[in-house]
């Protein structure tokens, strides 16, 4: 009997050892340990034995059973590892296959520059103000010290609209963002620091002009601001915008009806390896107009020019964008095709 059991154990272990699949091993287990299994059969014969034999054979059967179970488990583990290895092999993917990298569209450079300027100006306490694109003569000219038939009005080639004129005169497309100055002064009490960014329109269309462009305009009204503060402010803003600490700014006398004195601000640059580099060299590039607010402009804004003074600065967004990011043709801004957007646009994550 004990020899039989040893034989059975030997043959079972061999069978398990040779088994290669989980399904088969389950069959083997049933064949050995199942209700009619070989070992189960042996257990049933126990009842016919003497107490002494029962004890000896019983112990042997348990030993054999434990051995078989251990062997089964270890073989199952082996097979599982093997099967997993095979599965992994089968799951081969050519991970060098190319994938699409472009995951987003592009943000227009004007939006990007708007965000940059707004963030710089907020730092000085400037608050955003808005005005309509369709203006009247009153806001676009009259309150900016440009009475009708002032020759300066012809400097701005104005688009007039067929809408009926009202108390504020003919309707037109604003030629500059300066009307917002008046609107802001009427709305707020001095001292104030405001800025605006928006579309302006002039009847001009060639390689360097588009009939629409964007301007940023800022105004400070306070008791102690003058040309000296204006120079500092513009220099500081431009240094931050162009991210050039040693940028030089030159102020040239100019004329705007709404400022007295008026100036044009230039920044220095030189061409290095065919590229414009700012803050080095002694070439000058015009960047914007500025000045001390004309007393009539303050008066029209409801501010006493004997108590307060204003300083104002305006410049073109496209020009800023073009200079900072090397965007050549102005027309591309408004007639962009996909290549232009891809080349000069920004990822939304950069905004």
């Amino acid at each position: 009997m004990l020899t039989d059991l040893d034989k059975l154990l030997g043959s079972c272990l061999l069978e398990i050892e040779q088994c290669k699949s989980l399904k088969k091993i389950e069959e083997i287990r049933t064949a050995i340990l199942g209700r009619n299994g070989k070992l189960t059969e042996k257990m049933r014969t126990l009842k016919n034995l003497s107490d002494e034999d029962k004890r000896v054979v019983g112990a042997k059967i348990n030993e054999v059973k434990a051995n078989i179970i251990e062997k089964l488990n270890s073989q199952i583990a082996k097979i599982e590892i093997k099967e997993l290895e095979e599965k992994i092999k089968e799951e081969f993917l050519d991970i060098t296959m190319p994938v699409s990298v472009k995951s987003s569209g592009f943000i227009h450079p004007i939006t990007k520059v708007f965000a940059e300027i707004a963030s710089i100006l907020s730092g000085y306490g400037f608050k955003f103000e808005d005005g309509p694109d369709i203006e009247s003569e009153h806001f676009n000219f009259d309150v900016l010290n440009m009475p009708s038939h002032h020759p300066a009005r012809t400097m701005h080639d104005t688009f007039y609209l067929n809408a009926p004129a009202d108390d504020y005169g003919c309707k037109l497309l604003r030629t500059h963002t300066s009307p917002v100055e008046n609107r802001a002064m009427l709305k707020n009490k001095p001292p104030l620091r405001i800025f605006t960014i928006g579309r302006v329109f002039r009847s001009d269309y060639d390689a360097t002009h588009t009939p629409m462009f964007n301007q940023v305009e800022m105004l400070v009204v306070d008791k102690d601001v003058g040309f000296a503060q204006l120079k500092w402010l513009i220099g500081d803003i431009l240094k931050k915008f162009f991210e050039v600490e040693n940028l030089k700014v030159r102020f040239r006398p100019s004329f705007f009806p709404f400022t007295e004195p008026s100036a044009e601000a230039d920044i220095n640059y030189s061409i290095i390896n065919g590229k414009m580099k700012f803050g080095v060299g002694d070439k000058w590039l015009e960047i914007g107009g500025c000045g001390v607010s004309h007393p009539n402009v303050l008066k029209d804004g409801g501010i006493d020019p004997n108590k307060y003074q204003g300083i104002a600065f305006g410049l073109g967004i496209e020009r800023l964008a073009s200079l900072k990011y090397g965007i050549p043709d102005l027309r591309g801004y408004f007639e962009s095709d996909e290549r232009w957007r891809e080349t000069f646009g920004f990822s939304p994550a950069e905004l």
Partner: protein
Amino acid sequence: MRFSFNWLKKHLDTNLSLSQIAERLTNIGLEVEKLIDPNEIFKKFLIVKIQKAEKHPNADRLKVCNVIDAEDRTFQIVCGAPNAREGLITILALPGAIIPSSNEVLKKNKIRGIESQGMMCSYEELSLKIENSVDGIIELPIGTPLTMSVGDALNFDGGIIDVSITPNRGDCFSVLGIARDLAAAGAGKFIDHPVHSVKSSFAFPIVIGKDNSLELSENIPVMAFRVIRNIKNIESPDWLKSLLKSAEINIISSVVDISNFCMLDVGTPFQIYDLDKIEGEMKIRFAKRNENFTDFSDKNYKLQENMLVSEDTTNKPLCLLGIKSGKKIACDENTKNILIEAAVFNPVNIAKTGIALDANSDSRTRFERGVDKTNSQKALEIVSRLIIDTCGGEASDIYILNDTIYQPLIIELTQRKLQSISGSYISLEKAKAILLSLGLNLINENKESVKFSVPSWRYDLNIEEDLIEEILRINGYDNVKEIPLKSFITNEDKLLKQKNKLSNLKKVLAFRNMSEVISYSFTKKEYAEIFQNHSKLIYIINAISSDFGVMRPSLLPNLLKTASQSINYGDKSVSIFEIGNIFINDCEQHLHISGLRIGNASSRNWLDKDRKFDVFNIKSDLFAALDFYGVNEKNIKIETNTPEYYHPSRSGSIFLSKKLIGYFGELHPKINKMFDISDRIECFELFIENIENNKTKVKEYLSRVFPKIERDFSFVFNINDKIGNIVNEIYKLDEKITKVDIFDLFKMNAIQKSIGITVVLDAKTRTLTEMEANEVSDKIIKYIENLSGKLRI
């Protein structure tokens, strides 16, 4: 204002070079737009004489020339010009010279086997505009000394300066005025030429009256007249032609040329009448309404009241005063007797007339910016002296119409204001010196302030600030030190927050693979009419071109134009959006956002199935935008009536609590045709102002999760039933319904579709019972069956 350096030197005694003068001009606000320095341009050019010109042995049309320069050096030049001949004096470019027309450096080379040591130049190659240009190389006048500088030979007159004059500086529309400003800025000494009166030989011979209506008008001009008799209106002398050419003024006849020269020189425009063409007496009056006037170049004008004219006894206008000379009294080569008028007009009146008639002239430019109020007689003496010296003749007395005495404006300059505007200290003493050098006169002064009178040529000095600008300008803006702004505390910038919200919306869309476009605020009329949707269009009266004729009533036309262009360039897929204003009705402007998708949903690749964008792509873009604005999808209702530019059965209007907030869907096939786009166009328009800005809500978080019950239904609907709206209604049936999704859709036949709906039920604070779930299910079934839907088992 264009003039030569030598001309300037007639009024300015200076040691500065041309480029130093140019720099100084820019620094005092007279911006130099163009500087032509002949010594720079013609560094490697010579004046040469052709000694020998023989046929090229290897080419029929070429010649081999030997030329000689002032130092007797000879050069062998191969030349193709037909006029290259022995004895011709012309201009030679040496190797190394930059040829102005091509901007290229000339190299020594062999032409058909014969070495050419330079190039003889044509006017075109030097980028020079010349009337009656010869065919071939430049022909300098016989006798031109070879020692002359090339610049002088070509009438560069020491160099050309072109200054852009700002509208406030009428006084700088003359060489004299510019010299005066330069002198004040320390660039030299102003040469004040004494004016010698012309001896008058006879009394002023013609009656010139003025209409009574002028008497009380602010537009009454101050006018000085003189007659010169027995002149010969010959061709102008060379010195005069050369100066006028340097200023790019056309040469006409000596009388006209001299008056043009004097205007450029001293700033007062002149009107010259052929005296013999004036019939009877002359009178100054306002024009009659719609009165006809023909100018010297045969252009006709319909005049209006308030425009000033001169007339003779025929009562027809002779001249449009201050702006245009008339045809009738124009001088020609037979002119013998002339009447010269030098006047000062009200700038506003001239500007109004000029704008109304769209009539431009050098005279208008000066009068509307302000001509020296006391210069008329002096200018008349200068111009008549020059005419008599050139054309002979004798002068009459000067006749003055409406004599007035100049009353200068007095302005007080205070140390306080000077300090506060400049922001830094400038002594009154220094300020005084600057203003005096500009021609202002001292009235009186004390420690704190100085009073000045304004000279008759400065129309732009009216208030104290104007004087301060002059002081800073002449002293140099560079000399104002920079002072930092003080820090400034502000409260929350709500408008900027709104703007930033738009920027963030742009990010949302860009992350959805759409690119931002910024297009013009105007569009083509034909496009606008398609997209106007019953609103009134706003037209631009003076549009640049028909492409920009109307304010856009929608963002779509310009987006479509952009898309169409991209597709034309070969793009298979376009996904773009714009946020901007549209303009309709009575100058209303509304902020819109519009997105557009056309073509392939992804570029052809091995991962995705090829598929075109459809309505549901754009719908999810739209709902992403709405979600960004905190709009709850459940509050949205979609109707199917849309503007006619949409595809009638593939588009919808979006309502948020009964307010129309936009449209979306496919565009009508006629739009495809119009913009030459073959793929379906999916787009949305959203009216941002109509979406109420939802405030951030405090949300409730339930940390304990109770089991949810999910129920699936399958219903049969009519093919046209609007399932999206039904879904929103299902939400309203019971508050335990937390999610309604469509998991299946198929078309059963032409009139029916099957919809699989899954509903999630959740009591949130407790476990839902089976019975409650059944109740809700019954509600849903009942609701849908009431709508004519049927439950499929």
